[in-house]
């Protein structure tokens, strides 16, 4: 089974976000960059499917600057076979969901795939829109928030479980399809040491705007970035013992905060 994984390198979840002085983006200095956590589920699932079918190729497609190669190599070290790195400032600097999807669509048009995996969202802009737009551009069905996948032996269709509000839905979809990975789909593997040593020898196809022939224009304009208003620590509820504190808290929630 051939799969493509769309992957984005993002700041680690422990990153303290600071906005740059002109309010156009975050301060990237000192940021630890990692593979998107949801994309990681995508890579893992692609590898598991390849292992199950004992055939096929896993290709990582990523849009990002030079540093994105680190996350790409991590994917290759986990076991992916090849990668396409779309590295052109014309794209990644202001790319919104639509631009990202259109560039990814162009970047993977020559690839063969039965399934395209995406993370359910990149944890930087948190838009969660790329899979749906990519599906529209490629004319391929999209199922988001996938937590389980079973591909039929003949690779014409798959049974997919997706998370829905308060439960889950089971969906039968014809292939090829785009699946956005939700936590719970699998437990991503670590890159093994032999995998790391092999990763450098695996091919990474670097593409620019000229190579892809798309404009990658955004459909949204960011006016300003800001930090949330700082929250001040409130008061500590005092009391002789836990029961008194509980009573004082209930009283405060009732009388001051008026929430009960």
């Amino acid at each position, binding site marked *: 089974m051939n799969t493509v994984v769309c992957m984005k390198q993002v700041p680690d*979840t*422990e*990153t*303290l*976000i600071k*906005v740059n002085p002109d309010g156009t983006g975050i301060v990237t200095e000192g940021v630890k960059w990692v593979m998107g*956590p949801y994309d990681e589920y995508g890579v893992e699932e692609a590898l598991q499917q390849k292992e199950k079918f004992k055939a096929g190729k896993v290709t990582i497609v990523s849009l990002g600057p030079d540093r994105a190669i680190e996350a790409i190599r991590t994917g290759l070290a986990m076991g992916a076979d090849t990668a396409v790195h779309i590295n052109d400032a014309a794209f990644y600097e202001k790319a*919104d*969901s*639509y631009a990202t999807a259109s560039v990814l669509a162009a970047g993977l048009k020559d690839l063969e795939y039965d399934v395209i995996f995406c993370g359910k969202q990149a*944890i*930087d*802009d*948190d*838009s*969660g*829109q*790329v899979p*749906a*737009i990519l*599906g*529209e551009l490629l004319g391929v*069905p*999209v*199922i*988001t928030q996938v937590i389980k996948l079973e591909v039929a032996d003949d690779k014409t269709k798959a049974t997919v479980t997706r*998370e*829905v*509000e*308060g*439960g*889950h*839905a*089971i*969906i*039968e979809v014809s292939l090829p399809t785009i699946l956005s990975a939700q*936590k*719970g789909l699998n437990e991503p593997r670590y890159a093994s040491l032999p995998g790391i040593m092999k990763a450098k020898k695996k091919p990474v196809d670097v593409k620019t705007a000229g190579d892809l022939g798309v404009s990658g224009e*955004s*459909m*949204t*304009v*960011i*006016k300003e970035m800001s*930090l*949330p208003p700082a929250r001040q*620590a*409130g*008061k*500590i*509820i005092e009391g002789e013992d*836990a029961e008194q*504190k*509980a*009573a004082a*808290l209930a009283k*405060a929630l009732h009388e001051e*905060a008026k*929430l*009960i």
Partner: protein
Amino acid sequence: MPGILIYAEVQKGEIKKGSFEVTSKAKELGGEVSACIIGSGVDALAPELAKYGADKIYVVDGPEFEKYEPEAYVQAFAQVAEEVKPGIIFTSATAQGKDFTPALAARLKVGSISDCVDLSMSGDKAVAKRPMYAGKAYVTVEAVGDPQVLSIRPNSFPVNESAGAGAVEKVTVNLDSSKIKAVVKSVEIAASEEPDQTEAEIIVSGGRGIKGPENFKIIEDLAHTFGPTATTGASRAAVDAGWRDHAYQVGQTGKTVSPNLYIACGISGAIQHLAGMGTSKVIVAINKDSEAPIFSKADYGVVDDLFKVVPPLTEEVKKIKG
């Protein structure tokens, strides 16, 4: 003021509160407010939208819409949008809204902005504020193209009764079934009456300090005491330990929530967690470690063993609620 078209989402035979919130907001902004409701046997629900300001309600009703499937829903809504020609489309950024909205925008060949928490108008264009990095930063952003498509995070705007004209029109849509490549075989929803974390007004959450899955009972008891708008949540530590399903996880790799009241029990307050609940209106922290970072964000802090605080708190809340 351009016309606004709303996607009214139906779950368990009722219109979601989030859909009423966006209807109220649309009404407040002025201009013509339309809503589109899709489903099977949903026409009786239409008048409710009028209560919050819908002037016109389009009803797409048929057995083929019994279960939500994005392709069919997008086709139906796009046909209604074609007729209405709104300047702005609002959806509620519920679980379904997050699936539906970007697909709709892509079909209409316009940009969309997801999970907006605030809105203002700049001329005929809506400018939205939305969180990034799970709420560690915010951007104000404008969608180009016509119409603008925006999904609004639940609990961002209040529900206000303010009647609209409420004309109901049944719409027959022509589905291109060749494009429908996914079939929903079954949907299993837990019997629980609890709202989703992203929509709940009160969340009682448990972390590593809960010590084991069996102890979530006291968290659930407290949440239930608050009534049907309350639910429970969990920190990543509790989810990764296997004590709670991921659906409960609040934080950067879980759900970003903004309830009126967030009660964190035995949660130290890792940065990923604080980002995910930092916009809650009132935060209560119960933790025996006075050094826990959660206290720096809490409006009310109780430094004590949660197992000694939560059960009597449940009793006190019961007393107050009578």
